[in-house]
């Protein structure tokens, strides 16, 4: 699944035509779903009005070809609720929401948050677990069990701890209760998650190397582990390249692939020409420049 970056013009305002091109690019190059705006899409650098505007564009451009989910996590939970209602109004297929930011909520507070969110809309709700970025705040297996029991539209989790035990504690609790519960991960970490019941991941590098993403997904789902290892090592190396000041370097790499999407909003830096040249040399070394589509 692809989560597009957010294109900006040189004056840092939203670049709608480029966003539309990018959405279409992802659909044409094998994305199984679109989800926007993840942190990669600079969600927290956008106003709520901007998020609504582009969410509408995503639903309109994708036009039912694949599912579209909206990432509704905002600093204020009240904004999250508003974005969730909006996603339902515009015809999105689901929403994604992380555990609340900043206030290190207790398990009970996280529980109350997801109950309120799920009951406020009819759409499927995907939760998002990211303990290493949120001071250890995390979704546990027990919490997942309670939420599944109470909420028919609590449909899945993006489990981004990248840790065998944390993933397993959630997956074994969830899949025992709801076999079609969507166990997802982040950053293309498909190889370690698929054998545990994982069914997909949001991609970091899909705007650079959609072919590699699709090949890795197919190799994992078909259990071709030697091929999957080779592809996972390669795509994970790209993650090391891009995770620094994410998504600055990713946007820099997109320039090199003929798909410029403009700068990154402050406080994140924009990739310098030197950084872009380094990224280009690494993409060349990995054979990405010749094996992946150039331009739109």
């Amino acid at each position: 699944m692809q989560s597009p970056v957010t294109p900006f013009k040189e004056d840092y305002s939203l670049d709608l035509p480029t966003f539309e091109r990018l959405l279409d690019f992802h659909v044409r190059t094998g994305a199984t779903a679109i989800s926007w705006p993840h942190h990669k899409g600079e969600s927290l650098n956008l106003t709520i009005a901007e998020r609504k505007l582009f969410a509408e564009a995503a639903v309109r451009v994708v036009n039912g070809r694949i599912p579209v989910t909206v990432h509704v996590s905002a600093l204020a939970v009240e904004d999250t609720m508003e974005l969730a209602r909006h996603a339902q109004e515009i015809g999105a297929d689901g929403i994604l929401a992380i555990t609340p930011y900043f206030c290190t909520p207790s398990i009970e507070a996280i529980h109350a948050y997801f109950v309120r969110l799920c009951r406020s809309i009819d759409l499927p709700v995907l939760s998002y677990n990211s303990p290493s970025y949120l001071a250890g705040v995390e979704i546990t297996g027990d919490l997942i069990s309670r939420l599944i029991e109470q909420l028919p539209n609590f449909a899945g989790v993006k489990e981004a701890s990248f840790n065998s035990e944390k993933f397993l504690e959630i997956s074994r609790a969830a899949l025992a209760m709801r076999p079609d519960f969507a166990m997802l991960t982040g950053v293309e970490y498909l190889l370690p998650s698929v054998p545990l019941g994982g069914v997909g991941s949001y991609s970091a590098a899909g705007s650079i190397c959609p072919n590699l993403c699709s090949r890795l997904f197919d190799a994992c789902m078909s259990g071709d582990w030697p091929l999957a290892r080779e592809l996972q090592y390669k795509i994970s190396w790209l993650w090391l390249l891009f995770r620094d000041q994410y998504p600055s370097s990713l946007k820099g790499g997109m320039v090199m692939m003929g798909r410029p999407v403009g700068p990154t909003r402050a406080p994140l830096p924009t990739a310098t020409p030197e950084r872009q040249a380094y990224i280009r040399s690494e993409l060349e070394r990995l054979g990405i420049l010749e094996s992946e589509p150039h331009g739109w």
Partner: protein
Amino acid sequence: MPMYQPGLVHTPVTPFTRPRGIDFDRYAKLIEFHLAAGADALALPMHAGESVSLADGERRALVEFAIKQVNGRKPVIAHVSETGTAIAMALARHAEERGATAIIATTPYYWTPPAAMVLEHFVRIGAAVNIPFFLYNAPEEMQGAKVNAELCLKLIAKLPNFAGVIDLSLDWQFMIELMTDAPRLRPGFQLLAGTELMVSAAAIGATGMLAPLAGVAPRLVRELYDLCRDQKLFEARKRQEQIAALRQALKPGGVASLKAAMRAMGRDCGEPRPPVLALDAVAYQKLVGELESIAALRAEAREW
């Protein structure tokens, strides 16, 4: 140096007598149990074997005893982690002299030295012997210095007998980063799962596993390991989930829970040493109840 593949490594607990002393009769019995129950090798005394609660002379005596008892039937790997580099080096040399097949060491206890000194710590311990050296990466157990892939790759360049990493970080990013480069720099380099959560590690390329739960559920451990070794990873999921449930039941009490579970399975190895407290009667009964609820344990032997 020819690389050694440890395979499924059991990590026995250490039985103690009261008031103090190692119960060597019981330890002999336990070693025989592990060998009969499917161990490809033994690693001892690991943290599950209360290595840090053994006095200096005891630790040496335990390794000597185990090697004699095993008597070449399977490899014995000695755990030599210590705070002081020279103390760990001495344990490593002793283990090699007495016939250990390999050594294991983790980061220094308590200190938080700079990365260059952590590297030096491992280089010196490994260079003290001519047998394979495995680095044990256990960030949750070890509060001080941390290991990353970069350190491991530097260690390959500096230490010819650095044979692999035993991973207890369970961190996909670390394992993938390590395995992208390490086997290319050192053919035969091994990744071992540091506990019985092996499926993801095996997908990434792990070939071995340390099994602290082997004294409780050796059959389940063996089945999981064999499926992972044969890369039957979808098929391994069910056993992985069962063993994760067992691990969670034992996790809160650490070694005390592990020894309590050994007793519940009919293989009494006594209580842990201070400062670890044994489970009280209520906690023990609760644990027994939880073990009863794990269906996979019903196929396991309830005796020696």
